[in-house]
């Protein structure tokens, strides 16, 4: 298991970005070929090269700036969420229709309070600091986790074990 300090820039970018790949495909922001490549890599637990990741997740890359794992995580857990919370840009109109969908896009930390498996895929029952309870899918969570551990979540998918 990798600790917070050991994870590479590419790997953390891959983990956070992957959970948005389905939406990017529907919005035609990425090609089917790139989408397939992302999941081929994920299924093999291989991290794609930096150039590929930066091209596929170019919108986030522009906002992240610094090429470090810390900068990627800070972006997703802070700035990315602030944009949504502050209802900046198009989020203002989307928020009026569905705050829940907007909040679903936010990345966050939550404690695992239960684990069940559905066709071999871990489904975590998690509790956020706010007390809200949700599920998070662990298909591409590469870390070993147990009840009581804190994980980060993006778009309903577990991203990684959060080492406090």
């Amino acid at each position, binding site marked *: 298991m990798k600790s917070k300090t050991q994870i590479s820039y590419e790997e953390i970018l891959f983990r956070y970005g992957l959970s948005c790949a389905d939406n990017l495909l529907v919005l035609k922001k990425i090609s089917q070929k790139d989408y397939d490549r992302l999941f081929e890599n994920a299924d093999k637990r291989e991290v794609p090269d930096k150039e590929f990741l930066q091209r596929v997740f170019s919108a986030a890359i522009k906002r992240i700036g610094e090429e470090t794992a810390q900068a990627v995580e800070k972006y997703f857990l802070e700035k990315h969420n602030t944009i949504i919370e502050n209802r900046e840009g198009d989020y203002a109109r989307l928020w009026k229709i569905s705050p829940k969908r907007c909040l679903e896009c936010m990345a966050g930390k939550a404690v695992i309070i239960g684990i069940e498996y559905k066709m071999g*895929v871990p489904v975590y029952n998690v509790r956020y600091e706010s007390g809200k309870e949700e599920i998070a899918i662990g298909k591409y969570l590469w870390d070993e986790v147990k009840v009581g551990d804190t994980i980060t979540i993006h778009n309903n998918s577990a991203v990684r074990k959060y080492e406090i």
Partner: protein
Amino acid sequence: MCLAIPGKIIEISEDKFIIDYETDKRIVNFSVINVVVGDYVIVSNKIIVNKVPKEEAIRYLEMINKFEK
């Protein structure tokens, strides 16, 4: 923008769910929630993870389509 996009399930068979996104149709092989044809759902990492109320999904998609034009 980071957006969770709802799609409508138009067909369910033993091992696949066909989801209509208006601009495209996609096949997903797994759902962690109970769904039926006609439901609007959110997919993450190739898995159906959430249902969205129909009216909300329709309004949300209309808004997203406006952004994309």
